[in-house]
Each structure stands twice: as structure tokens, then as C-alpha cells.
């Protein structure tokens, strides 16, 4: 029980710090004229896209033994989850109906508009984001494992690995399902009601930015110092520690098979997730089957180790052992865990498509499938791209689930790196981390290029 309370406390502190800084950055990067704000946004997002233990490792090389403590875990997890509130705040403010702010600007300056209108308007969304950060922090295993800090999740992992004990997993799953249910209830009753009036309806969206005037140097310096200390310096340390080119060649020879498998699994998984999520979003919109939304969000919220344990129980028998002993179980886990992200992308964009687009095709005699293939899907090509690349990155970085599910000879790069960290020379581990960073950055760059082409 004490361990459970301690883990809740750890996650609450992490959530508070991540949301506080995330919202501040989101406001600054969207609403002000700060120089290089979009570069800052991308760089601060990096820790979310990397396997969490890489951030933990790079921080440990910088902060030493101090990091292996409650404070250290809070610091690492705050940096990892800060991009979630930051990106959500950024997107909310980008799409908010600017008339709400303009009509307040008639009465008072920007700081008062932000304080009394903008932030209170997006407050319910920030509550949702805080809940998501809390759940993710609570369910994180690889960071606490690397930093040798005991949490409720690490207990579940150890109990299952050593004794095949799964009672704690069931209790935790029920608690998390209850939380997901509460989040979705809150979303349905307090958020969707005002969505249309809050967003998108203004013709003068996002034209007015706050001039920082005398504060621009102070804010720039503050943000740059944080960026340098918690993002750039750890990466630079990794690059310096990785020493030489020959080191990279050796490292590549060691993990080339795992990299190949990672790319294959992630490509297949991302493709299935994208198509599956599109279908789910269509079904939710047309049939109002919100149970599907509940299901995808629940799987996203459940700790990875709990999903993996469930799948092992499901497939570890004589009939389905071919799934259990092959990469198929990993792909199934990926689909369960990560479909919520893509589903939300498609749902949000489907909601913005006027009904008349599909209705006019119907009037002209097009069948439902023809309409989906020739009208709806092409209009959502941006969502398909975003969904594919986002899923690809999340699958590439997955460690907690894959670690429990892979069979001999089927490990991924993230898992291989995690296992090598324990018993390989530091320069080799650093080189592998830099390689992982480059592999993660490649699809991001590809997405940025393809987004412009399409």
C-alpha cells in the first residue's frame, strides 16, 4: 500500500511540473513573437519521441548519482512528459476562436486576456492532459528501472517475471479503467459541449501575437537555458562519450539485425494502426459507438507491462503458441497500445469535415465504400501521414511491452539497447543512444518533407 501511495505521489509531482512548464511553453511558442519559437518547440518535443530510458541514461551521465533518487525520477519523467501539455496547449491556442480573445482585448491587455479568458477557456482540456500525464507517469517502467527506484509498476513487473503473479496487475488495471472512464465522462459532459464555439469558427485565426517587448531577452534566455541544460547538454554528452567513428561501426555491427527488425515491425504496425484507426474513427462517427473510443483510450492508459502480461496469458497455450512465439504478438500489442493516438487524430479531423461532403456524393449515387475511398479518405491524407509517422515513432521507441513479449531472435533495437546498457562499455552505449536518436529523427524529417509535398 505504501508503495502505491509513494508512486501516486511521484506521479502527481511529475504531472504538476510537466503541466506547469508545458503550458507555459505552449503559450510562449504559440502566442508570442519569441525568436526561434518553432525550433524550441521541436527540440523540447524530442524526449517524448525517444525511448524514455535514453533520457534517463543521458541525464545520469550529466547528473551522476544524484539522479538515482525520487528527485531524479521526477526530473527525468517531467522532461519526458512535458511535451504532451506543451503540444496540446500549442494546438489549442493555435485553433482557438480568436474572437474570444479579441473581444477581451477591447477591455484589457494581453496578460489579463490570457489570465481571465484564454487559460480558463482551455482549462478543462488541461485537466484532461494532466490526467493523461499522470497515467503515463504512473505506468512508466523503463525509467524507474534504470534509475533503480521502486514503484508499484516495477513491483508488478518483478512479481510477474519472477513468480508469474498477476493479482497486482488486475487491481491496477481496474483502477486505471475507472480513471479512463472518468476522463471520458468528463470529456463528454464538459468538453465536447463547448468545442464548436471555442475553436475554428473565427476567420481571423491566429493572426495576433503578443509582442514581448522588454521581456523578450529574459524569456529567451530562460527558455534557452532550460533547453540547453535538459535537452542539448545531455545529447552533447552522449555524442562526446560515444568517442569515435569506429565505435559507431562496432555498435552498428552489434545491433544491425535489431534495427532491421525494429523498422520492419514498426512499419507493419504503423500501417495496420493507421488503417484500423481510420475505420474505428469512421465507425465512432457514424454509429456513435463510443465504447470503441473507451476501449482504445483504456489500452493506451494501461501500463505497457499490464498489456504484455495479458497478451502472454491469452496466447501462451498450445493453440495460439505460434502467435506467442512470433513477432505477431508484438504487433498485436502495438496495435492495442497505440491505436488511441491515431484514432484521436482521425476523429478530430473527421469532425471538421462537413456532412455535406459525404451527403453530396450519396445524392449523386455513390456507395458508402466508394464515398469513403474517393471522398473521405483523400480529404484526410494529412491525417494518414501524421498517423503513420507518429505511430512508427512510438512503435520504434517502445521498450516496456516489447521487452516482455519478444521471443528468442526477435528483439528490437530499443530492447537490445536496454539490455546492452547493463553490461556494455559506456562509449558503446552512448553510440547506440545517438544511433537511436538519428533513427527517430529520420521519420520526423521525412514527415516534414512529405507534409509539404502532399
Amino acid at each position, binding site marked *: 500500500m505504501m508503495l502505491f501511495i509513494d508512486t501516486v505521489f511521484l506521479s502527481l509531482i511529475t504531472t504538476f511540473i510537466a503541466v506547469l512548464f508545458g503550458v507555459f511553453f505552449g503559450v510562449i511558442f504559440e502566442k508570442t513573437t519569441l525568436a526561434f519559437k518553432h525550433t524550441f518547440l521541436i527540440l523540447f518535443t524530442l524526449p517524448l519521441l525517444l525511448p524514455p530510458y535514453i533520457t534517463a541514461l543521458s541525464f545520469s551521465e550529466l547528473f551522476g548519482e544524484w539522479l538515482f533518487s525520487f528527485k531524479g525520477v521526477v526530473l527525468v519523467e517531467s522532461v519526458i512528459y512535458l511535451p504532451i501539455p506543451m503540444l496540446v496547449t500549442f494546438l489549442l491556442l493555435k485553433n482557438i*476562436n480568436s*474572437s*474570444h480573445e*479579441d*473581444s*477581451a*482585448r*477591447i*477591455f*484589457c*491587455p494581453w496578460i*489579463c486576456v490570457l489570465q*481571465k*479568458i484564454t487559460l*480558463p*477557456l482551455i*482549462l478543462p482540456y488541461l485537466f484532461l492532459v494532466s490526467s493523461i500525464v499522470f497515467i503515463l507517469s504512473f505506468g512508466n517502467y523503463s525509467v524507474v528501472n534504470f534509475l533503480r527506484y521502486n514503484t508499484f509498476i516495477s513491483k508488478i513487473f518483478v512479481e510477474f517475471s519472477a513468480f508469474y503473479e498477476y493479482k497486482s496487475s488486475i487491481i491496477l488495471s481496474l483502477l486505471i479503467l475507472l480513471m479512463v472512464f472518468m476522463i471520458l465522462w468528463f470529456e463528454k459532459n464538459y468538453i465536447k*459541449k*463547448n468545442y464548436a*464555439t*471555442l475553436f475554428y*469558427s*473565427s*476567420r*481571423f485565426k491566429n*493572426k*495576433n501575437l503578443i509582442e514581448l517587448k522588454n521581456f523578450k531577452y529574459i524569456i529567451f534566455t530562460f527558455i534557452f537555458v532550460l533547453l540547453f541544460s535538459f535537452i542539448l547538454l545531455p545529447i552533447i554528452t552522449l555524442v562526446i562519450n560515444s568517442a569515435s567513428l569506429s565505435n559507431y561501426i562496432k555498435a552498428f555491427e552489434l545491433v544491425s539485425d535489431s534495427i532491421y527488425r525494429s523498422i520492419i515491425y514498426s512499419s507493419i504496425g504503423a500501417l495496420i494502426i493507421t488503417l484500423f484507426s481510420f475505420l474505428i474513427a469512421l465507425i465512432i462517427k457514424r454509429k456513435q459507438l463510443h465504447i470503441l473510443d473507451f476501449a482504445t483510450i483504456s489500452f493506451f492508459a494501461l501500463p505497457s507491462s499490464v498489456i504484455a502480461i495479458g497478451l502472454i496469458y491469452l496466447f501462451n497455450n498450445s493453440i495460439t503458441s505460434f502467435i506467442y512465439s512470433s513477432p505477431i504478438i508484438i504487433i498485436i500489442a502495438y496495435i492495442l497500445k497505440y491505436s488511441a493516438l491515431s484514432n484521436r487524430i482521425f476523429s478530430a479531423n473527421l469532425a471538421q469535415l462537413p456532412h455535406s461532403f459525404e451527403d453530396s456524393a450519396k445524392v449523386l449515387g455513390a456507395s458508402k465504400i466508394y464515398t469513403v475511398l474517393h471522398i473521405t479518405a483523400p480529404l484526410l491524407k494529412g491525417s494518414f501521414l501524421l498517423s503513420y509517422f507518429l505511430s512508427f515513432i512510438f512503435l520504434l521507441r517502445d521498450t516496456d511491452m516489447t521487452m516482455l513479449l519478444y521471443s528468442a531472435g526477435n528483439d528490437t533495437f530499443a530492447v537490445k539497447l536496454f539490455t546492452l546498457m547493463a553490461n556494455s562499455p559506456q562509449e558503446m552505449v552512448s553510440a547506440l543512444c545517438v544511433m537511436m536518436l538519428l533513427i527517430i529523427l529520420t521519420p520526423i524529417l521525412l514527415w516534414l518533407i512529405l507534409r509539404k509535398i502532399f
Partner: protein
Amino acid sequence: MIKLKNITKQYDSKKLFYNFSLDIKAGEKIVILGVSGSGKSTFLRLIAGLEKVDSGEIYLDNKLVSKDDSILVDTDKRDIGFVFQDLALWPHFNVFQNIEFGLKIKKIPKQKRVELVKSILEKVNLRGFENRAIDELSGGQKQRVALARTLVVKPKIVLMDEPLSSLDKDLNLQILDEIFTLQKELNFTLLYVTHNKSEADFLADRVVTIKSV
């Protein structure tokens, strides 16, 4: 009262105003007519200081407020009121709180605020609606709340951006009549944007027609 001198404003390659000048006297009712996309709303936003001009000068009460890509006097210091096309009533506030907002910013004491809000609600025929949530109001009632929120702080200039475009014809005429009466009573300078010629004929001392350059 309002003076625009050689205003130029363009978006991307589209020129909305080129060397545009206009003088408006205090208490005058000006209706801005024009087709969609001609820059009617932008015209109001430039006067409000919500957008910068590319070049030219804007004076309010003989004071230079905007000049060549610079806002010299911020929106909240211009003593204006603005009714937006989508009304922009804040959904997290009720009717009273929406109207009270401007008075609160001006640090008017609570008791006086209550008096002023009640008085303006009476003027717009919404007595007893103080505690209603915004989403409980009809289109016409929302319109009146937006009007009350703008007028309660007694601005010298009121800008209205197609405020009646979403209402049916009867309600449209009724509220137009109320605006006409309130303007007469409070004597503010009114700039009213519309694409409806009959609204212009009813309300205007002077009509300005904007055409794309």
C-alpha cells in the same frame, strides 16, 4: 473623431486598401457596405488596433493610434466597443459575468457594477437573465448580451461587424431598431459593417462602400 489617412493594407498578394482616407465625426452613424472578402471586417479591426496597417495613419479623438506597421495605442486604451460577427460571448461566464467583465477591468466597485449591469440589461430587454448560461440563450438574446457587454462601459466609438447576420428578418429589424435607439440615447459614434443594403438604409447617416482593389 476617427480619421484614417492614406491607409494601405494587404494580405499576401491581395490589396484590401490602397491609400484609403476617411473622416468620421463624433456621434455619426457610418455603415460600411461591401461584398464578402472586400475587407469590411479588416477595416474595423484596423480601427480597433487588432491588426496593424501596412502604411498610413489612424487617429482617434485627434490622437495618433496606429502608424506604418506600428500600434501606438493598444486596443484596450482606445475607448472603443466591438460587437463581433460571432458575438464571442465567453462560454465559461454567465450573462452577468460577460457584461460585468469590462467594468471589473475598469475597477468599478461591485455595487456600482451590479447597478450598471442591471440597467443595461433593462435597456436591451433582458431583465432577469443575469444568471443564465450563454448556451441557454436564443440567437436574439445572445445578440442583446453582446450589445450590452459592449455598451455597459460607455465607449465613445462602437464597431459592429455584421452582428445581425445570423438572425431571421423580423428579429433582425427589431434589434436594428434597438441599436438605433441606443445610439441616439448614448450618442456613441457607430461604425456598422454589413452586406445588407436595407440595414444600411435604415441605420446610416453615411454609407461607405468598400470594393476590392
